[in-house]
């Protein structure tokens, strides 16, 4: 039944490095909302990296910092030897073309009064990479790439289905031939059969072009099947980094809880899910110590409520920020 799968093994060449990124929003009356707290992530070339977590965990904010749609409060984001957070003006604009984004909601991502041809070629016009007369051919080429009929070039976004529109979003992002593609819940609004088509499409393109993908998602089963690595976030903090194929061996209590809330595809009465108690705490006043302490079934009185756990290496490409675990040296694996 597992038909979606990535088979690309890759060398570990880092293409993007976000170092200790923190993003705080002032919310008035002197209060500060910490959306992302001290997050460090590496993205390898040709890799699909998933960012997983509940709504409000800061995953979208983190990628918006990478896209420079937000300015970081602290930290650096290194791409191609340059710190993206420091770039300004024309240099920023030129760098932007290498990192493209597909948005969650394909109904609001386009100008409703532009035709598909112009939507796809808009970023190319911006960088003077295309003449008006070549636009039609380029748009048709991109449509073929995302497996849509070529004659939709003259349509408006409103005349297309959700799945088709999501492909237009992908076509527009890929028209720039980017190094990094950021997908913010790109398949959450679609039903399973369309989701599978979109995922297969992305992975097919990745195989051909060695594209690096950051894939924000809250469906762990999809992450297991299509991604190389997963980063789990909770309340603005990265709590676990794990090879996606090993998700079942997850160590952090939050990741384990996420796994247990996925409904298995088995007949009534045979499957079980267990739920996390309570709601995610307010990011306006972060608790001292581990962010997950109030909902954690394994919370220890000692340590968890006093100090923030550090990221520890527990296996190959597997890191956990939890007081329950100690470092495992590389030699003992």
């Amino acid at each position, binding site marked *: 039944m597992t*038909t979606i799968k990535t088979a690309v093994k890759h060398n570990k060449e880092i293409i993007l490095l976000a170092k200790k990124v923190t993003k705080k929003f002032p919310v008035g009356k002197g209060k500060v909302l910490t959306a992302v707290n001290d997050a460090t992530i590496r993205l390898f070339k040709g890799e699909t990296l998933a960012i997983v977590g509940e709504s409000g965990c800061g995953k979208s904010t983190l990628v918006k910092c990478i896209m420079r749609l937000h300015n970081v409060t602290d930290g650096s984001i290194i791409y191609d030897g340059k710190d993206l957070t420091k770039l300004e003006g024309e240099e920023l604009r030129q760098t932007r073309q290498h990192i493209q984004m597909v948005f969650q909601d394909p109904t609001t991502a386009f100008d409703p009064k532009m035709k598909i041809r112009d939507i796809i070629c808009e970023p190319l016009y911006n960088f003077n990479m295309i003449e008006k007369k070549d636009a039609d051919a380029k748009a048709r080429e991109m449509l073929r790439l995302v497996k849509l009929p070529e004659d939709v070039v003259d349509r408006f976004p409103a005349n297309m289905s959700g799945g088709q529109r999501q492909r237009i979003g992908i076509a527009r992002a890929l028209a720039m031939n980017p190094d990094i593609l950021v997908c913010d819940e790109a398949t959450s609004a679609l039903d399973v*059969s369309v989701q599978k088509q979109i995922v297969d499409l992305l992975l097919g393109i990745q195989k051909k072009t060695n594209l690096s993908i950051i894939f924000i998602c809250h469906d762990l*089963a999809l992450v297991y099947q299509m991604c190389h690595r997963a980063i789990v976030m909770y309340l603005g903090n990265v709590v676990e980094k794990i090879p996606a194929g090993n998700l079942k061996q997850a160590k952090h209590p939050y990741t384990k809880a996420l796994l247990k809330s996925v*409904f298995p595809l088995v007949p009534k009465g045979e499957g079980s899910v267990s739920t996390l108690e309570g709601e995610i705490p307010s990011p306006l006043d972060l608790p001292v110590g581990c962010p997950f302490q109030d909902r954690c079934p394994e919370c220890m009185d000692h340590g968890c409520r006093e100090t923030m756990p550090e990221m520890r290496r527990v296996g*190959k490409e597997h890191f956990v920020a939890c007081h329950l675990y100690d470092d495992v040296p590389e030699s003992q694996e």
Partner: protein
Amino acid sequence: MLLEVSNLSISYGNHPIVHDVGLSLDAGKVIAIVGESGSGKTTVIRAILGCLPNEGHVTGGKILFDGKDLVQNTPDEWREVSGRKITMVFQSSGSMLDPIQHIGKQFVEYIQQHEDISTEEAEQSAIAMLAKMNLPNPERIMTSFPFELSGGMMQRVGVAMGMYFKPQLLLADEPTSALDVTTQAQVVEEMMQICRKDNTAIIIVTHNLGVAAYMADEIIVMQNGHVVERGTSDYIINHAQKDYTKELLAAVPQIGDEVHDYY
């Protein structure tokens, strides 16, 4: 038999959307209707509650609820049934509510619409109902505006309102599709518990086959307004015959035991 739908056909304007759908449901049982967007699954349950949008109308068939054909209902008869004997939980309960009124005021208004009790009493029982859905601090929720709550909390308010009168039939239109996995598990669990206690029958429309398999006694698979296949949860998951059902099942990502090693 609580509900018996036979040969139901529905059109929007001149376009037939749903063809010849039948289903029957006993008290306390759960049916799931699954299928991709545009398959007509929402249209079917909207017809049962008599709330098809503008151009929609039933062109043939019967919807027998407690032995009475709902298609023939007059507006007065609907007032007896809808909101009390049959209720609905919508995909986004946030947009079902008035954005500029407190949730409590709307909940009380709903209760008093169907029951002759004082405002204080209604408030108290609304708070008790919210607490039953494991909503933290229900008094505060009563004085909140819809936009102040998270999606999961809003959805639980929707279920709380839907379950308040212990309806005989609860219609749920993609009640968890907009939620995270953790919140989805919570809301599904709470719906199941409350319904088991009150012996409420449920028809849930969803495209999440995992949720359908978990909740439903019977699963109905729809495509382009036709019923493709139906059967017990076990039959559909393990012994589906039709290609469309198999495709649908194959498209659901699953966490297997196999370890993918890329490093």
